[in-house]
């Protein structure tokens, strides 16, 4: 650097560039991994707002009279209770439209490929409609399913499209599906009067004849709702798409 350079006034844009470069080279105290920060923040929100959230969850859902009537019919039992064992224990159970959800465990462990349902076989949509114990609904947003399965003597009909799985079942008589998930509690979705499970979770089928639930598999985010007397669980699409599909069920 020569003396004449030193005596020159610094050009404004040069000073600004030097300040930016200086900023980029500054060492701030070590930053914790963002995922750790996210966990810590979440814990603080949950600790301080547990009661608030429980209240909000119920207060925020204002169903239309039609949905409310359906919900009364299908909301068999909602048991909410904290257990003293804390986080690792199941803290709440939700039964809705033939689905029993245990919230608060550690969430699912991967268990490999899903096994077929009892007596599951490939059928045509017409055959499914004839054989199922309920009126099979097809969301108009998706059109004809690419595959149809009938299982457990017509208790469950599964419609498949690429990347989308829709299980339909008799949602009024008992528990058909058992779900295990970690926090958060599923989100209530007023539009379709159902529940959105935003995270991967364990799901197992509870056979019609009773007995132990079948082997658990890991399901992705899922929307659960009820249409007339049919329980539905939709897996694959994201929340917005799932709601669009659910709203198109007639």
């Amino acid at each position: 650097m020569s003396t004449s350079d030193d005596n020159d006034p610094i050009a404004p844009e040069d000073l600004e560039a030097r300040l930016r470069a200086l900023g980029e080279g500054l060492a701030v105290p070590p930053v914790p991994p963002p995922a750790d920060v996210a966990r810590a923040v979440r814990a603080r929100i949950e600790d301080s707002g547990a009661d608030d959230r429980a209240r909000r969850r119920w207060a925020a859902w204002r169903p239309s009279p039609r949905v409310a009537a359906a919900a009364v019919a299908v909301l068999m039992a909602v048991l909410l209770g904290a257990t003293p064992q804390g986080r690792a224990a199941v803290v709440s159970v939700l039964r809705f439209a033939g689905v029993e959800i245990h919230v608060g465990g550690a969430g699912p462990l991967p268990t490999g490929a899903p096994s077929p349902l009892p007596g599951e076989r490939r059928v045509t949509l017409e055959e499914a409609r004839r054989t199922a114990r309920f009126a099979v609904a097809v969301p108009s947003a998706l059109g004809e399913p690419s595959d149809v399965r009938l299982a457990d003597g017509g208790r469950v009909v599964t419609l498949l499209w690429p990347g989308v799985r829709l299980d339909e079942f008799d949602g009024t008589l008992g528990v058909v599906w058992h779900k295990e998930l970690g926090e958060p509690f599923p989100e209530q979705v007023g539009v379709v009067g159902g529940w959105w499970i935003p995270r991967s979770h364990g799901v197992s089928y509870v056979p019609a004849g009773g007995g132990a639930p079948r082997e658990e598999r890991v399901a992705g985010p899922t929307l659960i709702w009820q249409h007339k007397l049919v329980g539905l669980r939709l897996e694959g699409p994201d929340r917005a798409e799932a709601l669009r599909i659910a709203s198109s069920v007639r």
Partner: protein
Amino acid sequence: MDDDEAVTRALAGDLDAYEVLVTRYSAVAHRTASLLGAADEAEDVVQEAFVKAFRHLKGFRRGSSFRPWLLRIVANETHDLTRSRGRRSDLAVRLGREREPYGPGDPEDPEGAAVDADGRSRLLEAVRALPGGEREAVVCRYFLQLSEAETAEVLGVRLGTVKSRTFRALRRLREEVGREHFG
């Protein structure tokens, strides 16, 4: 998931969606807290800011940018902290690497690197010596590389104030650094 969707879902109580926002802005929040004077308490400040942001999410104007809104909360938390500690909100930083890959001169030339490091430390000292408001404007505009509008939002001042503080700060820095060149 973009910010707007994450905010929408977080407003509905979806903590997964809020985690997305926390993860996304954690680094810049820490940097902001540190540079505005939180020092080794930046972690606490940032966590507290994120918790407050969640509680006040309803006050976030939809369609505007989440980042400056969040950083304003971080800045306010930092101010509260430094006030409560009765200390000056100083630049809690030091010069990082010995030399910059983008600095002037040949990076393989140790002498050039030393001269560069010297210039940087003088410039940092000059920024430290600026009056508080001007220093914060410089920190936001150049160290955090926020726009003038974002800086105004983060510091809670008008756009014109940001412009005039930045202008005065640059003039002062130019004088300071220029004078040292003679010395």
